[in-house]
């Protein structure tokens, strides 16, 4: 299976090779080490009693019956936590979140009482035996109603006494308004991107272990960011940081859902401190779906101005963001609406103005990623829908409109009107490639034929630009901690490597791809490189894995650390070759005497010498560490084309073909990149056609289990077709951009554009996602098709 590099000089497992994954050995045998697989001596189990109400005053909590359940050892209430100053905890966005409520619950399924027992079943029995009296309060689930005058105030603890959290805006308001006044053509559209849930196959959980004798606190935890979590724990609890160890074992998918600190982690920690024993908390799927942080929930109004010949000029966007009862979004601290201002997309808008108002509602926290870099999906969906709406208004082909407007390749680095400097791109190249693969012209002919016969076929395009790899320390921090990431590389005497990283794979294959970067940089086969992540005691500090940042940051750190090693190794090589350092160059994976390439030393020979025969006066050893502060974000892009057929009898949308042309810069492992795209596309399909978390007027969640929340199966998922263009990032050491999320970001507008295109005969301008059959059926039965 492994494709060898075409050049004569290559290293086994270097960059560009589809080597098979190192981590698979354990997963294939059922020997992964997920948090629920870990069992510690004397371990107890935590279960949680949750609120049936979305908003209610707690008038009494009675735990006597729970404490009488055989096996139950302790209960923990909000009042217990309040005494320790832990009833509330800070969020990443400088808001605060309840660990356990003292007197009021603010969303359905909120944690109310923790019950600790000597078995999983006894803990569940205990949680069911807790009695809580509630007095229901008025519920607000609609963010527009929440922001209306006279709405019941959800967060009475805040001095503002309002459901308005913040207003954020960027761009040139006056200039944008002026552009719109002067424009020849404008289009506008309301777009709702509903609340969705990441639903990683593994739910969240932890084992907290306080060692009262040594004062050491260890937590095995489903976290994408173990180091940042350790610091947050230290700051919140006052425990000395060196006594806190956060271990992120194998993670069964993250997608942003394992970035936040959930109440369960903290309750388990308190329970361990209280009992002196390890305490395991593993949420079940319903708890995971109902109470863990959600994504999206953006109500967007967008307007685009253009010339009558189809050149876009200005963009105006006004958004209401539903954050639930607290702003616990997982964003860089300076960006309350994330990187939503990538919304000008692949087009050179001269003017733009974007504003977002955030609201509290009686829902669990929102604002996490769902496989996306901080609101980039919302931005891409908006601009790529608006381009189609503009194309329709101008009666031009959506591909032609895009090709007419794209930022041209020669314009890079390109400064967008909202302030980003795009590193590199060739947008027309990607779209033309996708059009060629799918035979766009042929599809349009087929569509015209089908329309004559009354059949519904649609073609949708999305030409997205992402912004990932957070991020440069001038702008990017989380609670003040700069968003660098790290690699520590040690070459041992026999030429084998252990490398440790500040990130944490959740299935992305870091153990393989990082090894490939190091293999390429150091000439040591990937098989001889062991990659470790996730233990805050051993790995260098880093901000973790989310927002497609691992390759742009820690992957870059791997290269930089390797190059530091090469500098020292070159001196050792010169010593071994008995020439001056200036006469030695690193070429074709070895140190060679300039002009005499056959006179050479391998990195393995140098490594041995670094411990056995290093030059006098030089330190022994061969290792380096790098904390990489990226000079810019990276801007992956691509063009997707989707073909749908709609069943007129049922309203069912069937994705017939989907061609994804991605450009993520240099490709480290083509097999893994394709796997990331396949998964990302499926998580783009999901909210387009299937997934939505809804609430009724009383704040009852609909979709609180996999019976109701429709994660795509193999039946709904089409056979994805992928292709690549390669436009390296000019500022990344190996030119890579990150790829884990592109497809989730890029796919939804392609699918929706295709469905709306199919329904053109019915005069449809827009359908909000998810486009389930009932929505389509209503359109088909609202009246006869319009002509023209």
């Amino acid at each position, binding site marked *: 299976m492994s494709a060898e590099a075409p050049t004569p000089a290559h290293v086994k497992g270097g960059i560009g090779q589809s080597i098979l994954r190192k981590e698979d050995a354990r997963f294939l045998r059922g020997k992964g080490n997920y948090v629920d697989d870990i069992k510690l001596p004397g371990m107890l189990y935590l279960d949680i009693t949750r609120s049936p109400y979305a908003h209610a005053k707690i008038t009494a909590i009675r735990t006597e019956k729970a404490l009488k359940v055989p096996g139950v050892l302790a209960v923990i209430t909000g009042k217990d936590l309040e005494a320790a100053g832990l009833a509330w905890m800070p969020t990443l966005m400088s808001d605060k979140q309840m660990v356990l409520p003292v007197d009021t619950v603010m969303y359905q399924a909120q944690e109310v009482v923790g019950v600790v027992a000597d078995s999983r079943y006894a803990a569940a029995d205990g949680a069911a035996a807790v009695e809580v009296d509630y007095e229901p309060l008025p519920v607000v689930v609609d963010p527009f109603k929440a922001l209306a005058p006279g709405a019941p105030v959800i967060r009475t603890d805040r001095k503002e006494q309002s459901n308005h959290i913040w207003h954020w805006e960027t761009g040139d308001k006056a200039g944008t308004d002026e552009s719109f006044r002067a424009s020849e053509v404008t289009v506008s559209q309301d777009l709702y991107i509903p609340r969705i849930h990441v639903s990683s196959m593994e739910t969240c959980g932890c084992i907290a272990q306080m060692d009262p004798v040594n004062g050491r606190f260890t937590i095995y935890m489903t976290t994408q960011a173990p180091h940042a979590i350790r610091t947050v724990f230290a700051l919140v609890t006052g425990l000395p940081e060196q006594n806190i160890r956060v271990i992120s074992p194998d993670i069964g998918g993250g997608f942003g859902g394992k970035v936040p600190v959930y109440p369960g982690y903290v309750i388990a920690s308190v329970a361990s401190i209280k009992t002196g024993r390890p305490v395991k908390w593993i949420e079940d799927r319903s708890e995971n779906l109902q109470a863990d942080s959600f994504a999206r929930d953006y109500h967007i109004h967008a307007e685009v101005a253009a010339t009558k010949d189809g050149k876009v000029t200005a963009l105006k966007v006004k958004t209401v963001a539903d954050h639930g009862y607290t702003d616990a979004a997982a964003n860089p601290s300076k960006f309350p609406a994330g990187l939503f201002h990538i919304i000008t997309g692949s087009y050179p808008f001269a003017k733009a103005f974007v504003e977002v108002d955030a609201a509290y509602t009686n829902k669990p926290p929102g604002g996490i990623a769902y496989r996306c870099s901080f609101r980039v999906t919302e931005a891409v969906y908006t601009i790529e829908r608006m381009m189609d709406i503009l194309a329709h208004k101008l009666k031009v082909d959506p591909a032609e409109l895009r090709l007419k407007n794209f930022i041209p390749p020669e314009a890079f680095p390109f400064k967008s009107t909202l302030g980003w400097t795009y590193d590199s791109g060739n947008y027309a190249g990607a779209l033309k490639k996708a059009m060629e693969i799918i035979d766009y012209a042929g599809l349009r002919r087929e569509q015209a034929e089908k329309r004559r016969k009354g059949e519904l076929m649609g073609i949708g395009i999305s030409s997205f630009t992402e912004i990932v790899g957070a991020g440069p320390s001038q702008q990017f921090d989380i609670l003040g901690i700069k968003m660098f990431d790290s690699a520590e590389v040690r070459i041992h005497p026999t030429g084998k490597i252990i490398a440790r990283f500040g990130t944490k794979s959740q299935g992305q294959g870091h153990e393989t791809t990082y090894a490939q970067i190091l293999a390429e940089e150091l000439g040591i086969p990937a098989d001889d490189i062991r990659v470790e992540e996730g233990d805050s005691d051993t790995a260098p500090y880093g901000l973790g894995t989310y927002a497609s940042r691992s390759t742009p940051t820690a992957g870059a750190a791997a290269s930089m650390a390797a190059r530091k090693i090469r500098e020292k190794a070159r001196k050792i090589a010169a010593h071994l070759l008995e020439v001056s350092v200036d006469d030695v160059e690193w070429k074709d994976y070895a140190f060679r005497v300039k002009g005499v390439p056959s006179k050479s030393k391998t990195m393995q020979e140098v490594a041995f010498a670094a411990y056995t025969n290093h030059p006098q006066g030089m330190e022994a050893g061969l290792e380096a560490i790098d904390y990489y502060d990226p000079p810019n974000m990276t801007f992956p892009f691509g063009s997707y084309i989707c073909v749908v057929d709609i069943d007129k009898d049922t309203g069912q949308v069937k994705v017939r073909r989907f061609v994804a042309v991605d450009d993520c810069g240099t490709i480290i492992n083509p097999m893994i990149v*394709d796997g990331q795209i396949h998964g990302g596309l499926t998580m783009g399909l999901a909210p387009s056609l299937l997934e939505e978390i809804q609430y009724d007027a009383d704040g009852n969640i609909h979709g609180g289990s996999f019976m109701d929340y429709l994660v795509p*199966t193999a039946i709904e998922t089409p056979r994805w077709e992928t292709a690549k263009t390669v436009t390296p990032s000019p500022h990344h050491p190996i030119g890579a951009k990150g790829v884990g999320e592109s497809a989730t970001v890029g796919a939804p507008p392609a699918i929706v554009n295709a469905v709306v295109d199919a329904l053109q005969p019915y005069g449809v301008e827009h359908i909000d996602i998810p486009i389930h059959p009932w929505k389509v059926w209503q359109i088909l039965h609202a009246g006869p098709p319009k002509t023209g």
Partner: protein
Amino acid sequence: MAASARPIAPAASLTSGGAPAVTVRVTINGSPVTAEVEPRTLLVHFLREVVGLTGTHIGCDTSNCGACTVHLDGKPVKSCTVLAVQANGREVRTVEGLEVGGKLSPVQQAFFEEHGLQCGFCTPGMMMTATALLAKNSNPTDAEVRDAIRGNLCRCTGYVNIVKAIQLAGKKMQSAAPAGGSP
């Protein structure tokens, strides 16, 4: 794997002094196991916590996701909705029982070669379903594979490479050719 070489000693008990325990005798991956459990003990908890075979995962509790799929008398079942007592006197095969004599099964080998797994959490259940499918039909079409794994959710792979892997495994089973290198 060692699991088939010797009887597995019960590692722990799930009982907490509540309901009276019952004795369950199950053959797991070829080895007899006897343990005292609460009558309500789910087969998945029995496997994971009593027997200590943690390769079988829990993903949903409602039999939608299939991460807990094992074979009961050769038939795939979702062990989160089977009681341990229902397995009494019967044979259970888990992911740990796929590898024989240090050699990956064709399904395991094909998942490796086709990159049919990412986070690995759904993989054991997916492979058990695939193994059961291929025992009946070693040359399934794309549609037949997708139909067979419709009860197994994967959030990472988009199923493309899982389908390819299952078809490749079928080919491996059909041909006598030895499999390639194992991970």
